[in-house]
């Protein structure tokens, strides 16, 4: 097994946040189902009070005739479309704030990861994308002042951003390190330049184009979940200049089984110093033709995915026409079926804090987030709560030595 692959398999991106398409689809469906169940339960349990107090009331005009009837919920595909739309909004917001590519990419990855186990009906995407950007800044080592940050996005108070911060961290399962293909592209360019017989202008223009692709296409699709950064990078390079990407793959996986008679004809003995001590069969699994074909196939699949959202589609997502035609109906639907308890993050945080403060018997926390293992109630279980402390306090109250005289 190649050492690089072994190292990549240790990353949280592979361990926690890589899925096959069918797994991803199943998870989104499950999040959607759970959100439906919990939201309808909440709407049914307190129909009157919430339509009076919650901000949903203005959009809930059809509810006036009968609050017991449930609104129509979003389907998983509609949710996915909305998440994609808000990801493009997030990238636009990042451009507006003049953030680095890595920050925007990390924020986009956080945002998409968050909405895998949480439904967009549960938590407000407009708020969460700002939170993701703020936390992306921190994860990438740039630390803006929260007051300046909120001003930049036209929010009034820092609380609106800070309220969702821990929620986001839970949603992304505290995996703060996102591996990006940007530096990988630099590495690939260096390797291509070393080959020698390729014009540098060709490489440079391909790099520019590939970088442009990387800044948009993989972030707005599910590429980060299905492919590794190097595969995404090669796919982008292939979109920019197919010949260069294939050349790089050919050069990398150049091993051919030596003929029994020729002996000295093996080209790789000098090329890969660390692998030269291994037996041929091992080398073949690292840089042999079989794995080369598989990589070519994977890169091709990734290329297909990226080509669906080329950088030119930025305008498509931000144009008013698209919004009116595709997104507005869904957003209207969303306004009716969103979670009454969790839509306002500031309120949610305050009520959670209060709940903790006057927690009497424990277990008063309800189902937690709509889906996924990262809900706050599960968290209590993981850390054991403070059962013991509570026990002590109780023990102190009833005297262990019997009543007073």
């Amino acid at each position, binding site marked *: 097994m190649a050492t*690089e692959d072994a190292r990549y398999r240790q990353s949280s991106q592979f361990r926690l946040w890589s899925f096959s398409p069918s797994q991803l689809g199943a998870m989104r469906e499950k999040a959607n189902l759970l959100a439906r169940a919990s939201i309808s339960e909440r709407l049914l349990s307190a129909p009157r009070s919430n339509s009076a107090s919650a901000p949903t009331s203005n959009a809930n005009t059809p509810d006036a005739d009968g609050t017991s009837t449930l609104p129509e919920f979003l389907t998983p595909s509609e949710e996915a479309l909305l998440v994609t739309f808000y990801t493009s909004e997030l990238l636009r917001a990042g451009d507006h704030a003049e953030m680095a590519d890595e920050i925007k990419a990390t924020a986009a990855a956080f945002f998409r990861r968050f909405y*895998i186990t949480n439904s967009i009906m549960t938590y407000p995407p407009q708020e969460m994308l700002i939170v993701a950007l703020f936390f992306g800044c921190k994860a990438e080592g740039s630390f803006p002042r929260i007051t300046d940050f909120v001003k930049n996005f036209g929010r009034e108070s820092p609380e609106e951003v800070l309220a969702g911060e821990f929620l986001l961290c839970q949603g992304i399962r505290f995996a703060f390190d996102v591996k990006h293909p940007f530096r990988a592209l630099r590495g690939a360019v260096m390797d291509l330049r*070393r080959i020698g017989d390729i014009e540098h202008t060709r490489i440079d223009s391909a790099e520019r184009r590939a970088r442009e692709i990387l800044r948009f296409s993989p972030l707005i699709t599910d590429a980060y979940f299905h*492919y590794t950064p*190097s595969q995404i990078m090669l796919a982008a390079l292939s979109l920019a200049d197919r010949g260069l990407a294939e050349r790089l793959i050919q050069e990398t996986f150049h091993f051919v089984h030596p003929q029994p008679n020729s002996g000295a004809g093996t080209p790789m003995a000098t090329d890969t110093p660390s692998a030269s001590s291994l037996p041929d069969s091992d080398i073949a699994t690292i840089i042999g033709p079989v794995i080369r074909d598989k990589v070519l196939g994977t890169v091709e699949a990734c290329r297909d995915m990226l080509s669906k959202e080329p950088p030119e589609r930025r305008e498509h997502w931000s144009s008013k026409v698209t919004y009116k035609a595709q997104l507005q109906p869904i957003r209207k639907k969303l306004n009716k079926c969103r979670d009454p308890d969790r839509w306002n993050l500031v309120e949610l945080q305050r009520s959670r804090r209060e709940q903790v403060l006057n927690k009497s018997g424990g277990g008063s926390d309800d189902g937690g987030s709509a889906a996924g293992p990262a809900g706050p109630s599960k968290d209590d279980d993981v850390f054991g709560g403070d059962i013991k402390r509570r026990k002590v306090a109780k023990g102190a109250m009833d005297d262990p*030595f019997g009543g007073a*005289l």
Partner: protein
Amino acid sequence: MPPKPAAPGAPARNLFHPLPIPPSADDMCPVCKTIRYLNRDMEFLINPECYHTMCLNCVNRLFTDGPNQCPYAGCSRTLRRKGFRSAFFGDLAVEREVDVRRRVAAVFNRVEDDFETARDWDNYLQMVEDLTFDLVHGTGEKRGEAEKVLVRWEGEHKGEIERNRRAGREREEQARRRMGLEKDAARERRVAALREVEEERRERAASKEAELDGIAAAPDGRGGVQLKRRGQVVRAVEAAAAATAEVGRLSIRGLKEKGKPRGAEGPYDPFGGVDFAPSRYRLGEGLAHPQVDKYRFDQGHVTGGYSFEEWTARAMYEAFAGLGVFVEDEKEAGIGLSSREIATIASGIAAVGDKMELD
């Protein structure tokens, strides 16, 4: 003068060590309501059956004729004279907890060496602590249960407990013996050092004597001066030798005895077996990027010690890391299977959801 109560009997005296809690003037016995003002020597005793305090007089009055009920209202424990003692801690809850812990520790007296791994030992400690906690703070039912567990364990593992206790005692004995030996050795060293100093002094006196003799024997004063100087040199050399000898005799106490060396585990690997040698690409000369090259002469980067080799290695690593990781196959079938095996497995599994990581 108030009528003095009968002096406590001799055996009782042995039982009660003096109270460490400073007595205050308004202490009152809750049973007979005597206050310290009236009885300067009042002592408070408790019985670990129920931990109700009462003064020594009350104990003598109530329990000399044999077992009796606790005089506290609502407490129906039967107490015996023998069980009474003075509390060590002012807070009786603490006193009780210490008693319970002592009792549990006597039953669960294993040591760390009895366990294979540190985790086992920790688990054992956790189990004991949970039991102790139930005994100390648990409500009626839990306490009863823990009590039962403790008694049963004691009954079932009598031999083992006894053996452990004996081993513990032996260990203590050994430690004490070792301390004794060390102390003896230190004393011997001190005595030897003293003797040496004494000898040196005697020698010096003798050499002085000899010097004086020499001066007396010499015809003029010059030889005497010379002799004197030589004596000084000798003394300096002697002092230096003594100093080095003193240094050599120093001993550090409290060092842990060395256990057997770790053999099979090998040296510690901070990276947990991850190999950092590249297998798909090659580092070294010829790797350059125009966007980065311009920084090679940038004061801000160079002065700070920015390593371009490091950056190159990282970029190359990222370009090739995970190239052979096929997420779809590995997440559904597991790492390390060949494509053919994956194909057979994939055809076997109809539903995919059961392998999911997040569920």
